[in-house]
């Protein structure tokens, strides 16, 4: 049963990964990417990392991929133009793919060799026996790796502020600016007047 589930998820991850590259429509690519994320979460559940699986779905499927989809749907992409440069750039793309593959193989080899003290290849770095992996991750992140964790948080914060600063433009003068407090404070009495004009007389506003 477990083996069947593993091969089901694994085949689907690889197939959807391939479809991301192969699909002609970028929106379809993003949807295949979501499918790949989902099956990767399934694989994580199979190895007992249910907390990471849920986080993968919440963060990547629920937020990141939605923004991808959002952007890709709004772009008006010229498919002919996109495909025109394919053969020209193919050698470069191939070279990058080979470098990445080599790095991946090297990285896994180095990890297998077990020189780094971060965790063991068998994954038995868990400090609390019998606790769920949510607690284990918390224990590890907030004790052994607290400074790395905080540093990662600060880097993300800086990146977020950077993105806001880069895109923020002060345009208050040119655009109608909403002042909600002012809108809420407005009462019918401020906006309307009751008048009873004499017959044949106009209304002075």
């Amino acid at each position: 049963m477990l083996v069947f589930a593993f091969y089901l998820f694994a085949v689907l991850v690889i197939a959807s990964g391939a479809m991301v590259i192969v699909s002609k429509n970028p929106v379809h690519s993003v949807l295949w990417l979501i499918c790949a994320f989902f099956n990767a979460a399934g694989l994580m559940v199979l190895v007992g990392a249910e907390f990471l699986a849920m986080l993968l779905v919440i963060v990547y499927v629920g937020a990141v991929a939605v923004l991808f989809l959002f952007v890709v749907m709004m772009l008006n992409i010229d498919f002919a133009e996109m495909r025109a440069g394919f053969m020209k750039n193919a050698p470069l793309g191939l070279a990058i793919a080979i470098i990445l593959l080599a790095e991946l193989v090297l990285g896994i080899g180095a990890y297998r060799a077990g020189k780094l003290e971060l965790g063991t290849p068998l994954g038995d770095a868990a400090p609390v026996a019998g606790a769920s992996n949510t607690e284990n991750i918390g224990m590890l992140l907030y004790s052994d790796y607290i400074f790395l964790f905080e540093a990662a948080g600060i880097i993300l914060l800086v990146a977020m502020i950077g993105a806001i600063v880069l895109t923020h433009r002060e345009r208050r003068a040119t655009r109608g600016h909403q002042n909600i407090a002012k809108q809420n404070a407005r009462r019918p009495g401020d906006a309307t007047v009751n008048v009873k004009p004499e017959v044949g007389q106009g209304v002075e506003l």
Partner: protein
Amino acid sequence: MTEFFQSLGMTYEWAWFVATISGILLIALPVMLAVALVIYMDRKVLGAVMMRRGPNVVGPFGILQSFADGLKVFLQETIIPSAANKGIFLLAPIITFTVALLAWAVIPFDAGVVLADINVGLLYVLAISSLGVYGITMAGWASNSKYPFFSAMRAAAQMISYEVSIGFILVCVLLYANSANLSVIVESQRGHGFGMVNGYFFNLLLFPMWVVFFISSLAETQRAPFDLTEAESELVAGYQTEYSSMAFALFWLGEYANILLMCSLNTLLFFGGWLPPLDIPILYAVPGFIWFLLKTVFFFFLFSWIWATVPRYRYDQLMRLGWKVFLPMSLLFVALTSGWLMLTRYGGAA
């Protein structure tokens, strides 16, 4: 239930398989029935607020109205616009409907009455509810039409915005309950308020969070006053504009199943789920399932009441409320809650 099927002479694997399938059916079918009745209730409440009768023709008191509507929709012709992206167009309602049913797997209806009693139940609910946006976005895009597309963009932005603050609110509840398992969360609310009231609702730190959660759940399910994705006066019917027949019905059912889910989450997280409102022995004579149902229906009544009462928000107001009011507020309360718990429960040891 696995033991029961094992006692019928099945192997463990088969017993588990049959038990899970029947568990799924035991949840999905009553949820669908509840959705039909809740649509009827919605229309009755709306009718009562507007001083008219509401549905009253089909069946006693019009209670079969939803089923008649379902039959009508079922018999309609399915129209697929020629400019639509066919595959995604048909996939969108299926995804909406499936996702709306998926989250019910971890909802405990009574003590121990839950299909999947997993440790990360709350995170699972959050993950599944963040998937709801895909059905709508895909529908809007695949329709290849202006109004659905506007609606899809609105829905995507709206649901992401409010999920952020919902996430922080869930963190507050999780800190108090010390678990992400929904059954444990309900159990930890027993006698929480003055040793008498079952529910986090009487906690001064969690009551404002409940208010924010309730409003966010209105926005998350695109109910009035945040129903900008199907604002009739602006967008015809929003992302459903091009849909007909069963595809439309699936959206409709999925939407109400999501609303019911949010109502039951309100019940489970803040109002003590299947526990009676007061921690008095005599109230435990009523089955927990009934309490759960009553509370959920009460929240659904609030949803209908608000639909009938409050005018629709402007889109910029909606965004402002989500990002500039709810997000800082829920963030502040995460800090306050954890600080308070550090001081009282963990003895102030840093």
